[in-house]
């Protein structure tokens, strides 16, 4: 089932554009059937096997003992349910939101591709396949953020997200490889049982940092948070699905997944907790400065991701329970609010919180959804958001630094409260304000999603028992490796506790800020120039630096001058090989000087004369004739030393070459001297040095006679097995026939290339080039 679940969205993606063309409006509903079915399947599994861990594996690369295996336990089930459930609603929503868009089919492809990848991330048991799916989510996120590819801002945001999460992905790859080496397995299910082995490894710190880099970039932790608000260039369903409900939680998932292994590592609490707390505060604060609905929501998402990270860093049963519950709660309300934002934008073509008022009358259903989700986000009873917030305060209560941490949490939750009321309430009540377009209610496909998600927030708040034992407790058990008994106690009322007091403080402070928000924002905006020093700017610096360096090194390395390229290559070879040779050869023993016969000497001398003429002549015809002489001399050498086949071949080729040269001779430029004499001298020196290196190499090589067993084999079997006396020919057509086959194919391609070049008429479109 798991393999099918991961692969089926990819398969559906292939036919999605076709379905979209055939069915138009109904396509979204039909496509949503797949995640809906998967959702029911996962739910069924969760209800039947709560708190059990199952591994499903298929052989992948058997020779390396790598399997394609999937792990289904409480944690992955919770995420799988969110991915498929919200995925179904988002697919339906997209059909309405992007109705009539020419590239809607493509959008479905990206979205389904993402769904499959995200399921792969949360279900993978093999750390390498987890990494592959992880990168696939970054990739589909890139495509989805840049969906409005005709907008420059979209393309820049998409590239930014890809570079940041992609760089983190590389760190993650290194991290999981270290993890696998330390733990001696590529399977998460085995690694989870070998936490001590990993923690005892000398490279533990590097492993931790690398994995955290991957998780932090993906989950938009400070200072990598800037890509997430920028990613709001994407259409609303993408922001809902990827950038609040699922993908950005992949980092959180990874932290939760590895918590049993790395949670007890020495610096885990410092890094994860510290980074999370900082992100929580920064995100919440920045959210207050925004006026765009989507950007407000994006910054609160950053804040929530910080809170989740912080809780996982803190560790302990209550904190982990808080984190797991918060993952679910946040997906419900934030998904709903993003969709509400999309409805508002779709209806009135504006997302400015300061300008929108009184949309309630025109958009009653959207308002209900917004209100339910907003109140859950604000953390008010009887919504599940309240339970989740209480749980967070309870987790802090147990910690040493409880006062400081409580202050941070109250501040962040206060900001969240403000944003929740701004979007969930303020824009809908009061007298209607003028908008670019007349508001109207969204079609059913677009209010179904937000209403369903927001209602769940209320239902789970009223009856927490629905999720506590079947979803939350097994997930907590998977993270904390605690006994799977439902120890936590999700309820709205716990009596008068310090947590209730903190809630009250949060709400009071939030109300105060909400009422004075316009005034406060105007004051705070004076600090906006400080934002130019933020991490977004660091990213630009790094990017420009890389591009500048690339330009610089291209200019240096790619001078475009062939003599420079050749000289560089040759000088490097001379230095490397020649340097080694000087160490090796003490005395060059050129043996058998007097072994030479008179006619051989004549041939060699003729060749030397021809080479000398070739190098010095200014006549093309002389040069070509001299080259021919060199070739014929080589052919004679072949004759003398037992290679008649070579001699004949060389002779024929030389003849054909001369014919070729003569045919084109008068269409070729005359010889000119282009370089001045110092250059010529330097290049001559390089050439001579290279010749000397070759001589040295050959001399050294000839001293060591390694024998040639293959030649002996060929000589012995040429007649017996291949029925041929000419061993060279037998090698060519029989022993190494496939090589020859390749060679004649290359020749044929070469001839076609010559023909194409000759028949190609570039100058036809460019009159005047010929005459220049």
């Amino acid at each position, binding site marked *: 089932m798991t393999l099918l679940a991961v692969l089926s969205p990819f398969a559906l993606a292939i036919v999605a554009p076709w379905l979209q063309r055939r069915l138009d409006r109904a396509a979204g509903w039909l496509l949503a059937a797949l995640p809906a079915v998967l959702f029911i399947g996962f739910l069924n599994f969760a209800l039947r096997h709560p708190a059990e861990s199952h591994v499903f594996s298929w052989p992948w690369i058997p020779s390396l003992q790598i399997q394609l295996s999937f792990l289904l336990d409480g944690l992955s089930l919770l995420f799988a349910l969110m991915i498929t459930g919200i995925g179904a609603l988002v697919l339906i929503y997209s059909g309405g939101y992007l109705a009539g868009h020419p590239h809607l089919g493509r959008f479905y492809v990206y979205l389904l591709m993402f769904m499959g990848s995200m399921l792969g991330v949360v279900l993978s048991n093999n750390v390498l396949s987890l990494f592959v799916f992880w990168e696939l989510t970054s990739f589909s996120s890139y495509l989805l953020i840049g969906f409005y590819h005709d907008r420059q801002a979209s393309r820049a945001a998409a590239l930014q997200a890809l570079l940041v999460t992609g760089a983190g992905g590389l760190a993650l790859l290194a991290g999981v490889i270290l993890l696998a080496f330390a733990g001696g397995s590529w399977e998460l299910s085995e690694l989870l049982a070998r936490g001590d082995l990993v923690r005892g490894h000398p490279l533990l710190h590097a492993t931790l940092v690398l994995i955290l880099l991957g998780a932090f970039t993906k989950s938009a932790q400070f200072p990598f948070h800037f890509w997430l608000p920028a990613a709001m260039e994407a259409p609303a369903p993408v922001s809902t699905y990827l950038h609040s409900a699922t993908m950005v939680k992949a980092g959180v998932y990874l932290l939760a997944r590895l918590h049993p292994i790395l949670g007890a590592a020495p610096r885990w609490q410092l890094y994860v907790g510290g980074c999370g707390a900082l992100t929580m505060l920064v995100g919440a604060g920045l959210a207050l400065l925004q006026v765009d609905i989507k950007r407000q929501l994006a910054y609160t998402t950053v804040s929530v991701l910080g809170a989740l990270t912080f809780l996982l860093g803190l560790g302990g049963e209550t904190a982990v329970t808080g984190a797991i519950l918060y993952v679910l709660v946040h997906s419900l309300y934030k998904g709903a609010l993003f969709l509400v934002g999309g409805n508002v934008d779709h209806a009135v073509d504006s997302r400015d919180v300061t300008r929108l008022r009184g949309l309630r009358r025109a958009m009653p259903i959207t308002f209900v959804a917004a209100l339910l989700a907003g109140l859950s986000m604000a953390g008010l009873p009887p919504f599940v958001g309240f339970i989740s917030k209480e749980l967070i305060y309870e987790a802090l209560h147990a910690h040493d630094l409880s006062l400081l941490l409580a202050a941070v949490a109250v501040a962040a939750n206060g900001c969240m409260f403000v944003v929740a009321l701004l979007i969930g309430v303020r824009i809908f009540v009061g007298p209607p304000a003028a908008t670019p377009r007349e508001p109207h209610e969204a079609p059913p496909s677009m209010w179904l999603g937000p209403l369903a998600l927001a209602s769940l927030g209320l239902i789970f708040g009223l009856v927490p028992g629905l999720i506590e034992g079947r979803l939350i407790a097994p997930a907590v058990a998977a993270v904390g490796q605690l006994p799977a008994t439902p120890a936590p106690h999700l309820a709205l009322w716990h009596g008068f506790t310090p947590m209730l007091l903190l809630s009250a403080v949060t709400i009071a402070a939030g109300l105060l800020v909400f009422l004075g928000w316009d005034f406060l924002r105007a004051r705070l905006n004076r600090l906006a120039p400080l934002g130019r020093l933020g991490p977004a700017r660091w990213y630009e610096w790094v990017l420009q630096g890389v591009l500048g360096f690339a330009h610089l090194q291209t200019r240096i390395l790619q001078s475009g001058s062939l003599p420079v390229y050749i000289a560089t290559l040759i000088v490097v070879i001379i230095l490397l090989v020649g340097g080694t040779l000087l160490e090796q050869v003490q005395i060059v023993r050129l043996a058998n000087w007097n072994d030479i016969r008179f006619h051989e000497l004549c041939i060699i001398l003729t060749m030397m004369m021809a080479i000398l003429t070739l190098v010095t002549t200014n006549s093309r015809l002389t040069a070509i004739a001299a080259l021919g002489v060199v070739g014929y001399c080589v052919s004679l050498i072949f004759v003398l030393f037992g290679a008649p*086949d070579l001699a004949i071949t060389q002779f024929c080729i030389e003849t054909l070459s001369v014919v070729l040269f003569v045919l*084109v001779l008068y269409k070729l430029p005359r010889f000119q001297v282009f370089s001045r004499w110092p250059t010529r001298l330097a290049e001559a020196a390089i050439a001579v040095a290279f010749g000397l290196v070759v001589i040295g190499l050959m001399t050294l090589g000839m001293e060591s006679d390694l024998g040639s067993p293959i030649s002996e084999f060929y000589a012995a079997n040429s007649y017996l097995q291949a029925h041929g006396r*000419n061993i060279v020919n037998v090698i060519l*057509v029989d022993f190494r026939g496939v090589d020859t*086959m390749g060679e*004649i194919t290359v020749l044929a391609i070469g001839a076609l290339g010559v*023909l194409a070049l000759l028949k190609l008429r570039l100058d036809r479109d460019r009159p005047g080039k010929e005459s220049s």
Partner: protein
Amino acid sequence: MNPPPARSMMPSLILNTATRYLMPLLVTFSIFVLLRGHNLPGGGFIGGLIAAAAFVLYAIAHHVAAARRALPLDPLQLIALGLLTAVSSGILSIVAGEPFMTGLWSHDPWPVLGAPGTPLLFDIGVYLVVLGVALTIVFALAEE
């Protein structure tokens, strides 16, 4: 294409007359070299080159168009035919249930060839490709 001028590249009566008799001789010789290549110097490469030289000589003495007419096939078709022959010599082995390009041999000696086998067929393919390639290039350049 423009109608070929009747003039040859090198108007010479002696060359003209000589090549008329030389060319068939050279082509015959090239085939002889090809066939005996398995046991004596020669083979597809050398044979193909000799044949190519013969046609190039003819083209120089008369004209490229005349040389093209003297060929049974277009040089490009020669290349294609040669590749086909070479590949089919290998495929024959597969048909016979042996690995690709295993040599298959006739058991009875034939009149001129001795006992031929698939390597000879392969060599004929090489001959045709080499001939076709050389002529494609030279003719194309000469016709410019």
